[in-house]
């Protein structure tokens, strides 16, 4: 039974970066901008987080500071994507690809400049797994939600609620959703499509940066060129799988997190032992392709996503 609770906790921990980044991707796509640069933005966040963590280790608030910096850098880099996609009306896929490549180049280059090696120097301490007194005594939930867990999980869960609130309860959210469906309608009522989309892209940058930093600070001890290993794309998959809505994205992220956990446990779980480890790695991707086929024709994605807004075209 302890293994079971342990698995649930680990699932939560592994889902966290996927979830946070996917929420960012959701905002971006909902506003009408495709962001396939999530992976790269996570890389920037992770590199920054790992670097800052190394320099500030020892202080209790250090990990939070590292998260914050990772988040900020992700946000700053995403301005480039926003500028290319919104102001210059560049191809959004090319721009995202460029950001992904840029991330692999810049982060390792900077590691060499700062640390003189291909990776950041390992940090000795970061977030620590905590078992919360009292809360962990809650039957069932306490066993995995409040035992041996990182605080980043709670940040992610709070972000789901905030995202839902912003998207469905605020005027910004209403305009953002409208901008991704019919920007002309938004423009004609005097709301600024450019501003909305810039905000959304930057939100995605901030959240991806945060997601990347969370990942490195909870699952790793240093940043290397393979630290993110496709998590940004899994987040993208979670957005699609979660059909661009916060709560389903939470479930999709947990599901994909679980598939990573199963890989770790597969040798000890009889039924999965026969499957190659690579099966668990590729699981989210295969599933997403299948999901796309199943959802096809239902038009669930934002209608104008990926289309630059051109005022002249009516």
């Amino acid at each position, binding site marked *: 039974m302890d293994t079971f609770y342990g698995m649930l906790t680990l699932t939560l921990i592994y889902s966290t970066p996927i979830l946070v980044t996917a929420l960012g991707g959701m905002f971006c796509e909902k506003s009408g901008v495709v962001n*396939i640069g999530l992976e790269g933005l996570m890389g920037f966040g992770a590199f920054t987080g790992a670097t800052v963590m190394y320099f500030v280790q020892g202080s209790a608030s250090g990990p939070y500071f590292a998260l914050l910096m990772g988040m900020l850098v992700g946000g700053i880099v995403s301005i*480039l994507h926003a500028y*290319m996609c919104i*102001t*210059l*009306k*560049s*191809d959004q*896929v*090319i*721009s995202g*690809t*460029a*950001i*992904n*490549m*840029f991330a*692999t*180049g*810049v982060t*390792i*280059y900077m590691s*060499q*400049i700062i640390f003189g090696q291909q990776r950041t120097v390992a940090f000795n301490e970061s977030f620590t797994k905590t078992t919360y007194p009292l809360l962990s005594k809650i039957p069932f939930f306490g066993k995995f939600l409040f035992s041996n867990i990182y605080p980043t999980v709670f940040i992610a869960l709070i972000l789901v609620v905030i995202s839902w609130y912003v998207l469905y309860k605020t005027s910004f959210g209403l305009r953002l959703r409208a901008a991704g469906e019919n920007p002309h309608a938004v423009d004609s009522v005097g709301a600024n499509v450019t501003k909305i989309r810039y905000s959304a892209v930057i939100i995605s940058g901030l959240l991806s940066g945060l997601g990347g930093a969370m990942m490195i600070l909870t699952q790793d001890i240093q940043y290397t*060129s*393979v630290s993110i*290993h*496709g998590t940004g*794309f899994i987040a*993208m*998959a979670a957005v*699609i799988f979660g059909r661009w809505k916060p709560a389903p994205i939470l479930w999709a992220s947990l599901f994909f997190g679980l598939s990573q956990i199963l890989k770790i446990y597969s040798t000890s779980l009889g039924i999965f032992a026969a499957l*190659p*480890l*690579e*099966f668990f*790695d*590729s699981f989210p*991707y*295969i599933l*997403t*392709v299948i999901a*796309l*086929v199943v959802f*096809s*024709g239902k038009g669930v994605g934002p209608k104008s996503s990926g289309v630059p807004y051109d005022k002249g075209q009516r």
Partner: protein
Amino acid sequence: MSNSFRAYVGNEKHQKVLIPIISIVLGFIVGIIIMLFSQLNAGYLFTALLRGVFGINTKFIGTSRSVFNARYIGEFLVSSMPLILTGLSVAFAYRCGLFNIGAEGQVMMGSLFSIVVALSFPGLPKVILLPMVVIAGALGGTIWGFIPGLLKAKYNVHEVVVTIMLNYVGLYFLNWTVKSLPGSSLVRTVDIPDAAWLGSDFLSDITNNSRLHWGFIIVIIAVYAFYYIMNKTTFGYELRAVGFNKDAAKYAGINVNKNAILAMTLSGTFAGLAGTLLTCGTFNYGRVIPAFENYGFNGIVAALVGGNTAIGSVLGGLLFGALQAIQPIMQANGIPREIAIIITSAIIIFVAMQNGIKSVLNKIGNKEA
């Protein structure tokens, strides 16, 4: 500025050539600025290029050691060849209006198929096994291109997302297969039989022991095939018509879906061949790949810089092959090799910014008016 200069940069036809060149120059400027900021000698970039591309080592000028070393030229070509093929791959799909971001995975599948065939028939003579290996590689890429093409045509699923996902599936599939082949270690397979090897002592000899291999013949055939199909055949005409305007193509009775499938499929073929070149030419064994090696992504840049044409992809492939070839030289001089990746990505950013560059050019062009 003279009027003729203004007229030149304001002309749309010239801009098609100017924009990639400007992007490349700006990309290098970004690289140089970053090097200067990190207090590195940017001049090394150019000496490394001279050495990596032309084999001329400026350090040895005036010494008794030989200034020229043909090995670098050989290695430069070895790095460029797969990129030319992935460039052709991306360009081919692009001309039909599809974005193949999955050349990366198609390369992996090409590698996978080649290595499996190469190791499965060790007894066959070279005249039979080598063609089989090449065809297998092409087939691997073809299958990995066919899937997104089919899903696009049949279910209207966006090829970009599918190809991204298939990249990872390809990566993990390749790694699993490589590890499972008999005799494999955790990182590589056993060496392939000589009969499946593209390498040649002759080519190696004339380039001072570089890894230059016969793959260049495959590249030349592929480039010509691309050019011929695209420009000389009715099939190419249909592909281009669909790429420019699906509705008009449909109006003219062209089967849009069939062309989309074929374009993605053949796009995969080009990339699959790159996998063969890597596995049976550059290396002579199958490798476990921890992370993407960016052959596919560099192919996107090569195609974009080359305006999605055959000859443009060759030039683009050579450019990014050069940037890849200088990486070890830079590293040896204490400059992080990743500067080459930074330059590459800066170039795509500028190519993607072509609307901005265009409007600047038009502004210059229209000043006289």
